[in-house]
């Protein structure tokens, strides 16, 4: 809209205009830049992280306790509801926005960044397949942090083979009674609600159903806690369901849609979320390595001037650039509602590449820092431990390879 005496534009139009580039002969050029709004989202997350998260990392490492107040703070900042539709109080900014936020937080604390991504994973099935009643009951609380969600699929029988699960749900009247034990559940203690998949039929064919369960329901129990090498401050362990009574209305989607519920969430968001945390670890490793290399003096000069150190820093740099390209593209594809057959290999590629790169980047940072790389006062050793926590979640490297191979063999690129 033209304003008399001046050019007035709505911010949304400015953002579209600013993100366009002049056409080159033969067609539009590809734009690799974040939009002004995405830059603002990144900035919001960066300021939050530097002011509120960074001062708490040492405590999280020492006590392993979950910083529950920071989840509330993430609610006030709008991060918890980044993928909740606006009619339920969220901002519905999509996967790429969520990825940018988690990357910034994970640059300092991949434990908290992963906590945020798992919370999103816990409610995404509701957004995708939940009834209006379930959405209205839970999503507003997911935005504020009154509900913190997780996703309970993995069992001792193996996360890579979810159909071998033994958690069962039996219908009694208008309720379902769930019995079983889920393991390696992130935020098993911090979360007070979860998306749980249980077997609802064995014969003639196995059938699985997704339920949304909250802690007020009888029989929902937090089980043993795992003692992990990394992600300190992010609890992980068992969730037990002991004659847990869940209303019929808490079924997600429909009876028998459990695998779709689980993998709709994990396949679209869970793997992207782990990629996001991995990007943060790579960036944090680069920052730590560059700072150390500029300050550490050997042979009368900063070690940043030594070629051997420069080559290691170059490798971390290229791991960051390539991981971002793959991950941002995968998130963009999700936001374009790309069909699963097209999407799956890209998300798997993003998850595999970014998480493996995080391990390599963190190891390089430790090498650059020498003895200081393995002492707790410096962040490199924490990145190394946390990187090794990221790679297995939401599907192992082998599963990602299978998905990519199937896609490639079917002609996808």
């Amino acid at each position: 809209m033209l304003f008399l005496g001046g050019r007035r534009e709505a911010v949304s139009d400015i953002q579209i205009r600013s993100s366009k580039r002049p056409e080159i002969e033969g067609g539009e050029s590809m734009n690799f830049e974040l939009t002004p709004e995405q830059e603002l989202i990144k900035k919001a997350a960066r300021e939050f992280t530097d002011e509120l998260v960074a001062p708490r990392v040492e405590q999280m490492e020492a006590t392993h306790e979950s910083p529950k107040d920071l989840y509330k703070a993430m609610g006030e900042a709008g991060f918890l509801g980044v993928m909740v539709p606006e009619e339920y109080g969220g901002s519905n900014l999509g996967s790429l926005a969520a990825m940018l936020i988690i990357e910034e937080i994970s640059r300092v604390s991949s434990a908290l960044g992963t906590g945020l991504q798992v919370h999103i994973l816990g409610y995404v099935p509701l957004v995708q397949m939940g009834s209006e009643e379930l959405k209205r009951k839970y999503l507003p609380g997911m935005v504020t942090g009154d509900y913190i969600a997780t996703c309970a699929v993995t069992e001792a029988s193996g996360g890579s083979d979810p159909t071998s699960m033994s958690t069962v749900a039996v219908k009694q009247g208008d309720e379902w009674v769930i019995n079983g034990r889920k393991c390696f559940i992130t935020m098993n203690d911090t979360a007070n609600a979860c998306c749980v998949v249980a077997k609802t039929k064995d014969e003639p064919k196995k059938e699985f159903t997704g339920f949304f369960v909250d802690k007020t329901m009888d029989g929902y129990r937090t089980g043993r806690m795992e003692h992990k090498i990394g992600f300190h401050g992010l609890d992980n362990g068992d969730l037990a369901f002991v004659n847990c009574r869940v209303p019929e209305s808490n079924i997600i989607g429909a009876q028998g849609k459990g695998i779709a519920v689980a993998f709709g969430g994990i396949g679209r968001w869970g793997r992207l979320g782990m990629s996001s945390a991995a990007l943060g670890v790579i960036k944090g490793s680069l920052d730590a390595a560059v700072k150390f290399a500029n300050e550490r003096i050997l042979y009368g000069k900063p070690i940043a001037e030594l070629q051997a150190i420069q080559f290691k820093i170059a490798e971390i740099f290229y791991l960051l650039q390539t991981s971002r390209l793959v991950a941002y593209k995968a998130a963009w594809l999700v936001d374009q509602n790309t069909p699963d057959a097209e999407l799956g290999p890209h998300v798997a590629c993003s998850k595999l590449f970014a998480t493996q790169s995080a391990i390599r980047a963190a190891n390089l940072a430790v090498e650059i820092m020498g003895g200081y790389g393995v002492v707790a006062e410096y962040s490199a050793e924490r990145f190394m431990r946390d990187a090794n926590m990221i790679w297995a979640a939401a599907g192992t490297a082998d599963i990602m390879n299978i998905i990519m191979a199937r896609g490639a063999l079917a002609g996808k690129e």
Partner: protein
Amino acid sequence: MRPLRIAVCVKPVPDPKQSNTLKIDPATKTLVRTGIPLVINPLDKNALEAAIKLKAGGGTVSVFSMAPPTAESTLTETLAMGADEAFLLSDRAFAGGDTLATARVLVAGIQKQDPYDLILCGAESFDGGTAQVGPQIAVLLGLPWVTRVFQLSRSNDEQLAAAIEDEHVIRELLVEMPLVITVEASLNQPRRISLMGVVAARKKTITVYNAADLGVDPAEVGLGGSPTQTWDYFSPSSDKKVEMWQGSSQELARELIQKLGL
């Protein structure tokens, strides 16, 4: 109480967190800004936070900035924080302006809107540090002004309560609107951007005015309209030396006496 119309003047400055990478161009005597990200001047953020708090429950906060076109992203951030509208005063003719030339442009932008009850500025900018623009705006508009306020609140429909600190005393003032106030960092803690603010900013507007839109006299703006010119701009060299002495108290005392030439 009646809603207030508040204007806030905002300047994009090089990110203070990267101040150790700032360099001075010896030829032009200006800061080399290429490659350094620009942020909202920190004290202007305090001013904006004060405005948003004062307008709570009604009123309007308008942000004004004399800056290049790239400042649109900075102004979007002010909208995401809670400002209602933003005005970017941008023209090549404004380049090189000193504080008075800048104040003239800001006043021209402010005067194009309905009158404001209050104009807030940061006490000084991170890069220039002159602390002149706020008072200059007040003089050009014929308004009273108070500088370096560290407490500010609404007293009644027409008055604000403010506090300033001189070297030895704190002065509490009751000031009548309209006026210009510049603020210190200790006034408040500026809010962080929330995602809700980012979404709300989509519907807000940034109006861009050039020199012709503002009707400013070319002789009064930019380098040509600046009564002050930068003579030199340099980082003073530091040649401090530190000597570490060791010894008994008597030895150290003897050495100190000798060093002092006593």
